[in-house]
């Protein structure tokens, strides 16, 4: 049985799954329920200055029939009284002494920071997270991302906090910045014990086509909000990786952003996170998702022979390189497994219109064929194919050569002019521009006119169902 427990910068937790500071951690009731369900920790909904929220607070991005692949909010920090929250933190810790309760904080003056850090420490919190991320509402008041975007200010506030902190301090970073390692380094310089990222991304989640206003709509108007959910995971992963690889950061990382199942969590961990936080998925599916997350993580660790989380924290980092370090001699080509192909021809149209015209249609079958010499090995076809493992990318070089751009630069063999012989695309065949004419036009005609307009299909009488039957 693998050991899922963690010691994150001194904060102990039975597993690496924490609820992020957000509506699911708004009250003692919710946090207790989550711990009962199996969550290892919870970062309490941010406490601080008094706020007032608007009504209509969230917007979603749906993809076809899939709800909330992206999620955005214009909500502020906790609007419940500080005293109530402190009392509930204390109560939760009484029932769950071994779970992690981290107080998320956001105030303004040095004195306020000192006061609130002492308050939550006295209430029994295991750690503190400084919310320098909220991209709306609070930043206008000089807090949240207004701090997170100014490394110097961030560092100063961390220093204020560290003056009184007796429990570990995590700095939560905003992604609304061009180089995430700058505030990460500032957090370290200020003396923080750890960082967590990412907070939400400044966004407009959609526009109402009838009301001419952005979602979510508050009395006919809206504002930019913070974006999160499955769609932001790739951005989060990249930022986690950047911080994990930066030699000047070297702090434990709590990964946040688009985590909804064990796989997402393992990805964050492989890129350097040693705890993970979840918000949107818990808001969408409730606390019960933790069962799948822990079960999946356990299974994965068992299969890989990992005893503890630390056996694989950052394990993918050595393989995340700069582009110039990649092997230019490595060559894959697409391969269609004909027995699996259902003939949708999405690969054909994708390569034809969106890549390198390296797939052709064949007479008498709907299974397309790869034109090997044109295939650049871009993966596109294998990504659009709706059948699992139907298009695979097969290695075609003999794995004996290794040459990178960096090495070529050093050897002076990189292409230097536009018409340089050594450029990649020079010998790549492309069709004549006019060969495109007439291929799509008839498809704009309705019904049978479309078939009549197509050069190959000038059949006149439509097939009857019986024809179709007898032909098959």
């Amino acid at each position, binding site marked *: 049985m693998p050991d899922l427990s963690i010691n994150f910068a001194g904060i102990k937790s039975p597993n690496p799954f924490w609820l992020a500071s957000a509506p699911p951690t708004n009250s003692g009731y919710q946090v207790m329920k989550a711990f009962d369900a199996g969550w290892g920790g919870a970062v309490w909904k941010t406490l601080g200055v008094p706020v007032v929220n608007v009504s209509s607070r969230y917007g979603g991005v749906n993809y076809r029939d899939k709800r909330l692949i992206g999620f955005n909010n214009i909500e502020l920090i906790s609007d419940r009284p500080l005293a109530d929250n402190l009392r509930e933190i204390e109560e939760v810790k009484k029932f769950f002494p071994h779970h992690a309760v981290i107080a998320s904080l956001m105030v303004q003056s040095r004195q306020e920071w000192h006061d609130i850090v002492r308050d939550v420490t006295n209430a029994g919190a295991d750690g503190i997270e400084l919310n320098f991320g909220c991209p709306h509402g609070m930043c206008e008041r000089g807090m949240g991302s207004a701090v997170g975007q100014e490394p110097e200010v961030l560092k100063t506030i961390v220093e204020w906090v560290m003056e009184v902190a007796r429990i570990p301090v995590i700095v939560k970073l905003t992604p609304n910045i061009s180089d995430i390692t700058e505030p990460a380094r500032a957090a370290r310089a200020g003396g923080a014990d750890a960082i967590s990222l990412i907070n939400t991304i400044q966004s407009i989640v959609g526009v109402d086509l009838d009301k001419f206003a952005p979602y979510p709509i508050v009395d006919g108007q809206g504002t930019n909000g913070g974006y999160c959910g499955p769609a932001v995971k790739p951005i989060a992963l990249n930022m986690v990786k950047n911080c994990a690889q930066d030699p000047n950061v070297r702090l434990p990382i709590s990964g946040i952003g688009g985590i909804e199942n064990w796989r997402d969590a393992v990805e964050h961990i492989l890129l350097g996170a040693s705890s993970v936080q979840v918000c949107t998925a818990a808001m969408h599916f409730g606390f019960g998702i933790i069962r799948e997350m822990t079960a999946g993580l356990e299974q994965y660790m068992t299969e890989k022979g990992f005893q503890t989380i630390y056996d694989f924290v950052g394990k993918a980092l050595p393989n995340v390189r700069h582009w110039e370090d990649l092997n230019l001699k490595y060559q894959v080509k697409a391969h269609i497994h004909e027995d699996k192909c259902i003939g*949708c021809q999405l690969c054909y149209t994708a390569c034809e219109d969106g890549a390198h015209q390296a797939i052709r249609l064949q007479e008498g079958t709907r299974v397309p064929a790869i034109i090997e010499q044109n295939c650049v090995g871009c993966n596109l076809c294998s990504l659009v194919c709706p059948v699992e493992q139907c298009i695979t990318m097969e290695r075609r070089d003999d794995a004996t050569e290794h040459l990178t751009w960096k090495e070529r630069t050093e050897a002076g063999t990189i292409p230097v002019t536009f018409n340089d012989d050594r450029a990649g695309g020079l010998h790549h065949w492309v069709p004549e521009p006019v060969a495109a004419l007439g291929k799509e036009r008839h498809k704009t005609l309705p019904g049978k006119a479309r078939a009549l307009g197509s050069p190959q299909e000038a059949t006149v009488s439509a097939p009857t169902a019986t024809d179709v039957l007898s032909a098959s």
Partner: protein
Amino acid sequence: MAEYPTPTTEQEFAANFAQIKPLMSNTEALYESSRCLFCFDAPCIKACPSGIDIPQFIRQINTGNTIGAAKTIYEANYFGNACGKVCPTEVLCEGACVYNLNDQKPIEIGRLQSHATRKVIDSGKHLFGPGPANGRKVAVIGAGPAGISCACELRALGYAVDVFEAREQPSGLTLYGVAPYKITNAEALAEMDYLEQQFGYRVHYNHRISTREELQRLEDEYDAIFLGIGLGATNALLLPGEERTNCVGAVEFIEQLRTEHQHVAVGRKVIVLGGGNTAMDAASESARLGAEDVTLAYRRGKGEMGAYGFEYDLAKGAGVKGLFNVAPVEIVGNGKVEGVRFIRTATLDGQVQIVPGSEFVEPCDMVIKATGQAKQTGFLHLIPGLQLDGKGRIVADTRTGQTSNPRYFASGDALNGGAEVVNAAAEAKQTARGIHEFLSGN
């Protein structure tokens, strides 16, 4: 034992004849349309006799442009709503959907199609209108799928169109022939009202064209005449006892069923003669009307029936039994039908042969003959120079629908010998273009 209680009210009728392709809700349409892969040169389009751009209209539904979806459908097929419900989609679009090859459920194209078109029908959305009048007139005989489709397309091209229909209501066999569990009368007629409002052709109901004089008048008054007359009455069996009470033709029985619903009397033990789709329908329908025992009797083996497999399955599901390799020799009874005398058959080298001495009487109190529809050759012979083929089908140019009498054009069952609504609709739309080509010279 009967699977269905005899319906006595309109509700009970509706329950026994529940729609097998019920209307999709918006949510169901969203989820189902999400599954479509948007195949390149999609095989479903090719399998649709009217060539509807299926992935296009499904994508339109998915992006909240249901009105645009309906437009895409109607631009290819004026019976878009009816077709979504009555087409044998299992062997057409849905049968061609690539999902079948992955052993996954094909996209429910028919129901999506009806969903989209129903939206514009219900709202009366103005999508089409007559083209600028070109001063020419065309007479359309028959207000079935062929006649109405031709009328719509001709109106769009600017022709004045008069439709002459023998019956009281439009849509031909869609209303009078198709099984009630595929489409309700209200649905069929709503689409007809919608099209008439959009295109503004005139229909003269209860107006059968049956004499040379009437045809002459049409020839004098109109620039061209379109024949969308479909087929005729059930073929006679030419067997002794055929005239007995309760020995009826399938199309006549079904027409009565469509118009009178639960007021149609069905026997307690019904024998349906035939192995085609109409036989399957008549058998299912008898069972759903509460007949205790329904038997399908067919001359050849089960596998040789002309009916689609799914139609036979539907009949079996309604409790219908099969009696194969038997040929009827006499309808027995005393004034009323009391049974059918059969003789067993065997198929040798593709030929059906009777097995001597194997006669037996299967008792019943109703016989439904599903032995095919006759062609309207008597009427068609009134048209000078009109050529028919050996089977009594009108001969016409496959592209323009023009017959051997240049001012007459034809489409639908009268031309193809009996196919589906979608074929009639698709052919007639194309023939309207043929008429236009003939009259305008382009």
